[in-house]
Every structure is written in C-alpha cells, then in structure tokens.
C-alpha cells in the first residue's frame, strides 16, 4: 500500500458515505410523497431506535446469543422509568450511567 492507494481509498470512502444518503433523497425531495408512505415514515424513528437498543439489552456479542439478566437490561429499567417521568435527556444519561456502573461494581464484588 502506497500513499496514492490511501488517497484513493479515502476518496472512495467519502463517496460511499455520501452517495447512499444523497442520491435517493435528492430524487425524493422534488416530489410529493403519498400519504400512506408519510404515515409509514412516521413510524420509522421509533422502530429504528427500538431496533438499535434491543440487542444491546437482550443479546450477547461474539457469539450472538439471546441473554436475559445482562447489567445493560437491569440498568435500562430505572433509566426508562426516569426518562418517562422526567423526559430529561441529560438526566437520563447520567442515571443510566450510574445504574450501569453500580451494577457492574456489584457484579465484580460478588
């Protein structure tokens, strides 16, 4: 690998970062979307967020296996309750971090 290869690689990484986002959206932005599609899109954010979180709480990595009782899941319960009660982003992050940290310390001491 020489310097030229690295520069080509960086340019190609930029292209595959930018084009998949830009091309479909430029095509879509010039036309009015159907109502059913807009309604479907409304549900995408909640679905993506839930899909991103769930495996962190309910599955182990390498190998990927279903796992109940992870500290991540146990810490998620008070974190979720705090978020529902206060709707504070910063507060929820801090509560989540300290719950997780505490659970890890308890697990280490046992």
């Amino acid at each position, binding site marked *: 690998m020489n310097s030229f290869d690295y520069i080509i690689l960086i340019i190609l990484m930029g292209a595959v970062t930018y084009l998949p986002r830009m091309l479909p*959206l430029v095509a879509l*932005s010039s036309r009015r*979307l159907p109502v059913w599609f807009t309604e479907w899109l409304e*549900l995408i954010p909640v679905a993506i967020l*839930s899909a*991103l979180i769930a495996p962190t709480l309910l599955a182990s990595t390498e190998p990927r296996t279903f796992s109940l009782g992870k500290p991540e899941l146990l810490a998620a319960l008070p*974190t979720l309750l705090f978020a529902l009660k206060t709707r504070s982003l910063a507060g929820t992050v801090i509560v989540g971090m300290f719950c997780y940290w505490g659970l890890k310390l308890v697990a280490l001491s046992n």
Partner: protein
Amino acid sequence: MADGFNVYYSFCRWFPVYCRCHDRQRSLHHIYCCNHLHGKFAAPVDEFCHGGSFPGCFTSFSDAGVTDESFAVNMARFNQGGWNRYSALVLNHVTNATWIVSTVAGCYVGQFIPAGSFGIDYALTGMFICLLVFQLRGTVFAITALIAAFCSVLAYLWLPGNAYVIVSSCLAATAGFAIKRAMRHRKQTT
C-alpha cells in the same frame, strides 16, 4: 463543504477499520452498508425538513450529515415543534464536527480514563432510551417499538453485521402502519 466534512468524517471513523483488515473491497463494502442505514435515517428527517418540495441542493447538503445520534435528536425536536431545516442542518454538521474533534481528543486523553469507569459505556444506550421515550406518541408507536425490539433481537441472532436494524425497523414500521390502518378502519365503522 458537505463533501469535505464527510470525507474527513469518513476518514476518522473508518480508516482504523481499513488498517486492520487490509482489504480495500471489504472495507468499502462495510462502510457502504453502514451508510446505507444512514440513508434510511435521512428519509424521515427529509420529510420534516422539506415536505417533499424543497430543492435537491439543500437536501444533499443537509442529509449528508445524518448520523444515528443527530437523526434521533432531530426527530425528537421536530415532533416537539419549533425546529426547522436550518436547525437540523446545524445539528447534523456540528455533531459530525464534534465527532471528529472528540475522535482526535480521545486519541490523546483516552489513555487517562480507565476503561468502563463511571458507566461511560452506557451513555449512548441511556441517550437512545430517552430518545425512544420522546418518540412514544401513542399506542401505535409503543406497539411498533415492541415489535421492532422483538424482530431486532431475532434478526440480530440470524443476520450478519448491521442488517438487523434495517430489516427489523422496516418490518416493525410496516406492522405498525397496518395496525394503525386497522384501528382507523374500526373507528370509522363503529
């Protein structure tokens, strides 16, 4: 400018991946797959920003900066109201810039923070939990979240890479949409 950000951002984020695998085709495919997911993130934001009628130049500039975190924060803010396409644009690119600066800073100061201290590994999960709560705006949204969680875990166990997010979120949104239509139909007939 957007291209510049993304080339630099891409370099900071993915260069280490490339250095590890020494396989150009594989690393480009990996980056493409991750960014295909971000393309999907950009669609709902785009609908809020432009309502399907804004010129492509703004779209191409703003949506290029979408990341997991800026997507979630933008959607929560749009739903709360008082948030426009310029706010989203600033958020997208400030987030990217912060990511770049933090990556560089992390290389120098990360060694002084013990691994796992203060539950720092949970910060992102905690943030996503709160952003998920912001998105729960009714029964259909809560049901969609539960379906997505179920499908996501199943897909995570069976599918390689990050495909589980795309598959499960599409399935859950489709199921949620069907439930919403069924509820609306039932309400109209009674």
